[in-house]
């Protein structure tokens, strides 16, 4: 079933009266429970696209549908995890999660909400850090809390903008596993849109990868990833199929860049 559909979506930033197109003519659809990655060069409009999906801004042209309805702003059906840590610094890890849950479960009692928060803190391995403020946590820990908050709110759609972009390689792998575990935890899978710069990350996590190009910022290719789940990271990385897909992605990703250099758009 189609969960999200974009029809000819364009968005332009306003800059001193002039319109700066950031994304143009995007047509995609995403199934319920699908894990879709978006990759593309810096500045191609990935974050812009995500904030349109979140309802933080509205398309200049075209329409975004969720469950067949045009979106009219932010909603509890969508959770957002930003590229840069988006916790509230004056709330402890636990308070951040409690705050999130309270926004979707207005009538639930305090005790119940705190129990849910602790459960999710446990799931991301931060039970002992419940009462720490974000500034007392490392970047990786903060991002775990942000992910725990997003999942604890139990939205149907999860929008993630380079959530692991600022982490070291080890933390990145750990959090990828945490994310997959939360996504595929037995109940109905959430629909995930995951922006990344990292080709391996995209291949390992996704059901489908959308490749964007810059100027105009639009989706140029959609590549299905058909490896069985749950995926065994080590075995997969050694396999020929993986290497084949990875090479294909690398050439797609860099073709765009090389073309630009060849076409003298980049001054050398």
């Amino acid at each position, binding site marked *: 079933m189609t969960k999200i559909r974009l029809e000819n979506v364009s968005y332009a930033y306003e800059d001193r009266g002039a319109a700066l197109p950031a994304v143009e003519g995007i047509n995609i659809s995403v199934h319920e429970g699908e894990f879709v990655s978006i990759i593309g060069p810096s500045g191609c409009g990935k974050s812009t696209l995500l*904030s349109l999906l*979140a309802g*933080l801004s509205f398309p200049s042209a075209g329409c975004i549908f969720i469950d067949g309805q045009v979106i009219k702003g*932010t*909603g*509890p059906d*969508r*959770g*957002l995890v*930003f590229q*840069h840590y*988006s*916790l*509230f*610094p*004056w*709330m402890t890890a636990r308070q951040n999660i409690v*705050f*999130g849950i309270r*926004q*979707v479960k207005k009538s639930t009692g305090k005790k119940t909400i705190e129990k849910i928060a602790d459960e999710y803190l446990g799931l991301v391995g931060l039970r002992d850090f419940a009462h720490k*403020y*974000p*500034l*007392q946590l490392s970047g990786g820990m903060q991002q775990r809390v942000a992910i725990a908050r997003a999942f604890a*709110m139990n939205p149907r759609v999860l929008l993630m903008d380079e959530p692991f972009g600022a982490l070291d390689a080890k933390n990145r792998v750990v959090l990828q596993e945490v994310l997959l575990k939360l996504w595929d935890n037995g109940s109905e899978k959430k629909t995930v849109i995951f922006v990344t710069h990292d080709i391996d990350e995209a291949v390992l996590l996704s059901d489908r990868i959308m490749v964007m190009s810059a100027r105009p910022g639009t989706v140029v290719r959609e590549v299905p990833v058909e490896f069985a789940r749950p995926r065994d990271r080590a075995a997969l990385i050694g396999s020929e199929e993986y290497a084949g897909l990875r090479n294909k992605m690398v050439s797609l990703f860099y073709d765009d860049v090389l073309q630009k250099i060849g076409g003298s758009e980049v001054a050398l």
Partner: protein
Amino acid sequence: MKKLFNLANIGFLLLLLLEIIPSRRNDTGPFFLLVLVVSIQVLYLLILAVSGDDDKRTAAGDITAIIYALIFSWELFTTKLDILDQMLFPAPGIIVSLFITDLPVLLKGFADSMELLLAGYLLALAFAIPLALVIGWRKRLYNAVNPLTKVLGPIPPIVYIPYAIGLLPTFMISSIFIIFVGAFWPIFINTLNGVFNIEKRIIDSAKALNVSEKTMLFEIILPGALPAIISGSTIGLVLAFILLTAAEMIGATSGLGWYVKYFSDFADYSRVIVGIIFIGMVVTAITYVFNKIEVYLLRWRN
């Protein structure tokens, strides 16, 4: 050994030795000066005993030494050598003795002053913060009000004093009004800027969590602007205190500012100095409490 012969302890000993030298002024015996010096030394030793932090102990020692140096030269040039004017430069012992005898008057003045200060200052907090939160959050209001604050904010609030006294029926109401106006602007302007400067990321995060307008204002914007609110409130408090004493000097019949002004009219400079020192102690105590509150409220910052 080194611990024993630090600057503070040497200062203490020198002051004790100074009292052996015969005095030229005979207006007071060594008793009150010794009371002062011994109290300072006891306080210093208490701090040494309580504090675990080496830097803090060193600082306490240095500060004590500086205070001793001041008292030493003060005592030396007044009581011992008598080369300063007796009326303008009373001996430290006299100040201490007057401080003790006048303490009831000073405490009453303190209570009266605090009443005015708290009334004006709390009113300023209660109006400035909510108003600035709402105005800072509404772009259109902000664009209209911000230029106005640039004109009204910098007017030195002292200039309102004569007008307020003429306009309002009692001294009490007019001083509360003046303190209110003086404290209002720094709190208001800082809060406004604080709201305006909250990171977009934080606002977007809150929006993405789908918060209500009320939650946004009180659980996101308010704590987000809190560092700015507190720095505005500190400036507001200092201004409130200045205005309080200024108003009391003009029209009051009690209070800290009144005490200083009243005795300076009689050229009783000993009591003027007592008043100044007492005001200094009050301000220090208030600032101390204020800092504790600030540290608690901003405990989430590193």
